[in-house]
């Protein structure tokens, strides 16, 4: 489908937030789902780029993505201005809601760095149904624009920075472990670098709290056909490759094999 760029603002060095007009489709997008964007008409870059939806303005039919400029694809995105047309496939992926039990009343969101974006939409879509505590980690206080959006949707926001320039000094997973000693929520939803997710999965298991995580993998089609976006998922003592784009990106953390 065609999306129209509504806004595209630099919010931090090399990080942009883009609003995309999608009409009625904006309403159907669930947290954890992503858009698969064609970056230009040329054969270089050839593949689409997967980016999570971080916010939805259903009334005006606008979704938001926040992305870091990494290479050719995201550089092209950064150059787009209001009114530009985007070739988009969406919504793709299973969503947090598809994995999570119904009737969640208390949810902790645990995220790190530029991996927090899918959690932002989760907070937006669940804050009227559940008590949300956001526990987020960043390199330094420079990244404040990335945690600010969580404030209006969370009962509490706990920030950890690696350099101690804001909140607790240390890793977000250390903060999580501390918090879990005092109280266990109904569910944890996590997103971030795979090293962080691995220790999140470990901690959740230690404290026996159900935990779902959103994974990233290099993608081709994004619709479940080409089988390039595989991750190892365990069940009943066996593992199988599953498609991050179609079976995921959200999985139960205890089922994910983070070995590779």
């Amino acid at each position, binding site marked *: 489908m065609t999306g129209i760029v509504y806004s595209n603002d630099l919010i931090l060095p090399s990080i942009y937030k883009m609003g995309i007009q999608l009409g009625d489709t904006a309403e159907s997008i669930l947290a954890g789902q992503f858009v698969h964007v064609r970056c230009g008409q040329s054969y270089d870059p*050839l593949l689409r780029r997967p980016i999570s939806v971080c916010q939805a303005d259903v009334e005006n039919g606008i979704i938001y993505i926040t992305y870091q400029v990494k290479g050719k694809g995201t550089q092209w995105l950064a150059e787009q201005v209001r009114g530009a047309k985007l070739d988009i496939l969406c919504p793709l992926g299973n969503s947090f809601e598809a994995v999570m039990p119904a009737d969640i009343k208390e949810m902790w969101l645990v995220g790190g760095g530029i991996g927090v974006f899918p959690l932002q939409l989760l907070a937006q879509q669940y804050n009227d149904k559940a008590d949300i505590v956001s526990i987020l980690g960043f390199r330094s206080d420079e990244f404040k624009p990335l945690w600010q959006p969580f404030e209006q949707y969370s009962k509490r926001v706990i920030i950890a920075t690696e350099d101690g320039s804001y909140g607790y000094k240390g890793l977000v997973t250390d903060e999580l472990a501390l918090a879990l000693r005092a109280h266990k929520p109904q569910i944890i939803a996590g997103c971030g670098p795979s090293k962080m997710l691995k220790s999140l999965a470990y901690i959740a298991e230690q404290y026996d709290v159900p935990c779902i995580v959103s994974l990233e993998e290099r993608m081709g*089609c994004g*619709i479940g*056909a080409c089988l*390039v*976006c*595989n991750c190892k998922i365990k069940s009943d003592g066996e593992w199988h*490759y599953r498609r991050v784009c*179609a079976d995921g990106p959200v999985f139960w953390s205890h089922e994910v094999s983070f070995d590779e």
Partner: protein
Amino acid sequence: MNDINMCVDICGVKLKNPVIAASGTFAFGREYSRYLDLNKLGGISVKGLTLYPKEGNPPPRIAETAAGILNSVGLQNPGVDAFISNELPYLKQFDTVVIANLAGNSRDEYCVAADKLDKVDIDMLELNISCPNVKEGGLSFGATPESVYDITRQVRNYCHHPLVVKLSPNVGNIKDVASAAQNAGADALSLINTLLGMAIDSHTRKPILGNVTGGLSGPAIKPVALYMVWQAAQTVDIPVIGMGGIMNGNDAIEFMLAGAVAVQVGTANLIEPTATVRIIDDIERYMLDNGLKTIKDITGGLIC
């Protein structure tokens, strides 16, 4: 209304148009049915099947290169039995030609699987002896004229469906392997499969693909593919199905001019799920614009 006829006949199998979705990029069609009407396709070559289910290679399995992609999926598939019970009935609902793509680790595996597929209602068998992503995965069978002849003969014994042999470009002389397949009883050829390649991350000094090497496809390989299709079509009398980097109708027509009776569209599906139907429309428009009535008016029409 126009009186253009886009039908093609490949060894007795009628395709409503010359565009086939290529194996490995289209799964078993289900995912694409949300984006296009599968009834519109000339045919679907399903994900490469092996006798037993296969998990495939570790991630990452894809790397983007200039105008191309490298993949190292490694034939992840549910196996022939699961295909027959779960996927084939689904595909048979549609009015399109179903081509079972078969790969294997050994002669025996190829033959047992071919025998199973012989008993079910597929339209054609495409013998994949050119997958570069698994050790035995067929490529060794596709590497020399002798090995191509041998595996084609073996499978031919079990296969009463029209047999298409899918050739690898990773060979010394494509003409020799094309002849070998024909002499061993192939009813048609399809080419080219992916070219062997690799991608390296200079920062980490590591290969990008989990499997280190992979198969290159996409616009980057089109000139090589055209050349090989042209050579094969000049060498054999059986129909040739061309593929390799076809992104639009014009690309497809170039392959037909080089001698292909039909084409397969692969990588383009990953970028645009509706690529196949757009290419069919493009070919029709080309025929209309050029006053052509049948696909025969294009195939082999290269002037040189």
